[in-house]
């Protein structure tokens, strides 16, 4: 294998994943997990396919009471997204994190239109969840990144209020973020004003039309998802954590659809986005569990068996590193084909199961560490478990011929080493 290409690739990945925006989106969106899990548990509880349970939720009224857990998470996800992204970007830029978060939230609400509504007899201005939920996520991302960066620029390079030397330093410090905060707010007020003069009417409508709607087309495409999965495995071949490179793209493209599904299900509406980030997490395929079991129970090579023993339990929880570096799968052309194709085939099987109406659309976040079958069951009921079982069989068949070649080669290597060692001892 050409080492210089690997080094170049590693450098390029380092540059890409070290990019401020990519870094912020990748780690910021991951921080939403607690919020997402609150919403998901509600969605799980009210959609468990057990009839007496559903009847109980309905008759006791508990069902409609607990949906608040989804409404206050999924339906206003963008507020939390702005907080998380701004928090992480401020951390990376080393500016005051709380101030940056506050300024970003203010900026987001500045460009978010209020709607006229009647509450009883009284006219009121309200924020609708249209802009605060999954549909507003792109605006949230853009505003959080822009506001935080502007805040940073103004803090670092903007004008500062000069205080007489006799003013205590703590007082001076408290003035330091005032001008930047006011500056950022002024910029967003101006942006809002400019957009109100366009045919879009406001920032949200413009971003939705220009950016989010076209990207949602991509976000609904199973092929976009498959391609990103393939790309992730390609990076793994060179020893680079694949989702490290693809997670920012995956989250941006596929998370809005997942949140929209979760909102819909909690509100009693059907989920509509078959391709979404929850689907990806749950149905990328139980690859590590299958391969580690093959190593532990089927290999004749001592080394592969040793790796299998280390890898089989972590493999159950979707952790692959012992195999990636122990077999190794990294820089291993024999393993490259099944390694790349396993997630592709798995995703296509699951997608097909949804398309033919066998499995329901996924609208529950199941952490990727959930063991196979259990994970599938939580995400999509018994049909989900069946789909994962089919995936396991498919992955096994896919790996088998390559595994046999690998095992044979390792055995031959080991035999050679042993005989050399014996000769060495004899002489």
């Amino acid at each position: 294998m050409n080492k210089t290409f690997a080094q170049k690739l590693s450098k390029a990945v380092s540059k890409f994943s070290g990019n401020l925006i990519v870094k912020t989106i990748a780690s910021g969106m991951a921080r939403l997990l607690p919020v997402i899990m609150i919403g998901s548990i509600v969605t799980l509880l009210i959609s468990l396919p057990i009839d007496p349970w559903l009847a109980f939720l309905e008759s006791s009224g508990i069902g409609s009471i607990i949906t608040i857990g989804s409404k206050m998470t999924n339906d206003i996800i963008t507020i939390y997204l702005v907080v998380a992204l701004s928090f992480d970007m401020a951390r990376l830029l080393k500016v005051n994190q709380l101030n940056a978060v506050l300024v970003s939230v203010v900026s987001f609400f500045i460009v978010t239109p209020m709607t006229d509504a009647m509450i009883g007899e009284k006219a009121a201005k309200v924020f609708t969840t249209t802009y605060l939920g999954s549909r507003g996520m792109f605006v949230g991302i853009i505003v959080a990144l822009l506001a935080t960066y502007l805040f940073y620029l103004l803090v670092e390079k903007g004008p500062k209020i000069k205080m007489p030397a006799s003013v205590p330093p703590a007082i001076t410090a408290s003035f330091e973020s005032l001008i930047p905060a006011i500056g950022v707010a002024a910029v967003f007020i101006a942006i809002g004003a400019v957009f109100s003069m366009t045919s879009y009417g406001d920032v949200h409508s413009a971003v939705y039309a220009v950016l989010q709607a076209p990207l949602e087309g991509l976000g609904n495409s199973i092929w976009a998802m498959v391609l990103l999965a393939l790309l992730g495995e390609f990076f793994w071949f060179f020893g680079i954590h694949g989702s490290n490179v693809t997670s920012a793209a995956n989250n941006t493209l596929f998370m809005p659809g997942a949140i929209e599904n979760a909102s819909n299900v909690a509100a009693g509406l059907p989920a509509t986005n078959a391709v979404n980030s929850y689907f990806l997490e749950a149905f990328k395929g139980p690859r590590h569990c299958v391969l580690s079991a093959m190593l532990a129970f089927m290999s004749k090579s001592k080394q592969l068996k040793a790796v299998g023993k280390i890898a089989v339990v972590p493999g159950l929880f979707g952790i692959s590193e012992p195999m990636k570096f122990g077999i190794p799968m990294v820089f291993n052309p024999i393993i490259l084909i099944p390694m790349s194709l396993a997630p592709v085939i798995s995703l296509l099987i699951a997608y097909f199961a949804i398309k033919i109406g066998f499995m329901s659309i996924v609208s529950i976040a199941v952490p990727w560490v959930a063991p196979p079958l259990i994970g599938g069951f939580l995400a999509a009921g018994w049909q989900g478990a069946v789909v994962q079982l089919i995936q396991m069989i498919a992955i096994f068949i896919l790996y088998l011929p390559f595994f046999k070649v690998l095992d044979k080669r390792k055995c031959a290597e080991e035999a050679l080493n042993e005989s050399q060692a014996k000769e060495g001892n004899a002489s």
Partner: protein
Amino acid sequence: MIKKILLACSGGFSTSMLVQRMKDAAKAKNLDIEILAVGEDNIFEQLDSDVLLLAPQIAHKLEDLSSDLDIPVFTIDMMDYGMMNGEKVLTEVLEKVK
């Protein structure tokens, strides 16, 4: 003398396996060292560590992190990582950082 070794991978999962084995190795050698695994996003919360070891799958972050942090940063050898050879990783880091 090293007091605290920090290991980082993407989410802190696979490094936690190695940490367990390094702790066992440290115990066998009667060494009193704190060894900890974190996800790369949480490295900045553990800056009191004496050394940072990166899992091979995030070795591409070595340059970035070395320039950001004041503590020495190393990557873990691929094979040692795969075989979860805690003893060897511990011995090597103790040789490198004194």
